[in-house]
């Protein structure tokens, strides 16, 4: 499944898309950054409501493929600037984390 497929499955807003063909093989949901670093697998979609600049550093360093901001959360200005510079995939969905993950999992299967 690709970033493009996730956008369609969640009917998500594209915040910044660097590579909509990037392959996604799994998911991770959580807001504590060290939990993400310790547990999120490489090439996953990360579901979170955290929207500060450190989210981009974590996602980049942990080889995460896509950040999914849930509950309609938008990136703050620093995060938006950084994902544009780094070239990272970020989308936003109105769904809460549970329902976003359910829709994602259906599409992944």
């Amino acid at each position, binding site marked *: 499944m690709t970033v493009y497929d996730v956008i369609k499955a969640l009917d998500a807003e594209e915040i910044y898309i660097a590579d909509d063909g990037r392959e996604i093989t799994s998911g991770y949901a959580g807001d504590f*950054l060290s*939990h993400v670093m310790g547990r999120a697998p490489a090439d996953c979609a990360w579901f979170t409501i955290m929207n500060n600049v450190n989210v981009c550093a974590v996602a980049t360093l*942990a080889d995460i493929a896509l950040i999914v901001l849930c509950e309609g959360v938008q990136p703050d200005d620093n995060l938006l600037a950084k994902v544009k510079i780094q070239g990272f995939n970020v989308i936003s969905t109105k769904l809460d984390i549970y329902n976003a993950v359910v829709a994602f999992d259906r599409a992944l299967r």
Partner: protein
Amino acid sequence: MSESIHLVFNVDGNNFASAGTASEEVKSKLKMIGISSADIRRVAIAMYEGEINMVIHAGGGEAIVDIFLDRIEILLADHGKGIEDIEQAMQPGWSTAPDDIRALGFGAGMGLPNMKKYTDEFRIDSTVGVGTNVYMTIKFN
């Protein structure tokens, strides 16, 4: 490559937005010299956890990195408040991060455990009131 690559980074303790810069530079360096993505990921995560700890808990510091053919050695050195009880600090879930830092997503108390998990050698030397040195070695597979 018989000699090592030696890199030194100043980690700014007052700038959250730039935290992670040193780890990102090391990551791209390792990519350039052809280290596997699985090994790079371990290095990047362990180093970022240490880098962000210096920003949050120690007012910044220095990262000294030596890349060899078969491994990377990282020293994170700061002159912050030090760690009183290292064994306690290593416990998953132990954190002294204040509320404003927790609001950013830090403070799970998982940084040091992650560093131990992703490295092959891990050691902390710390003196209260003097500072903290974290030594990490990651072997390339």
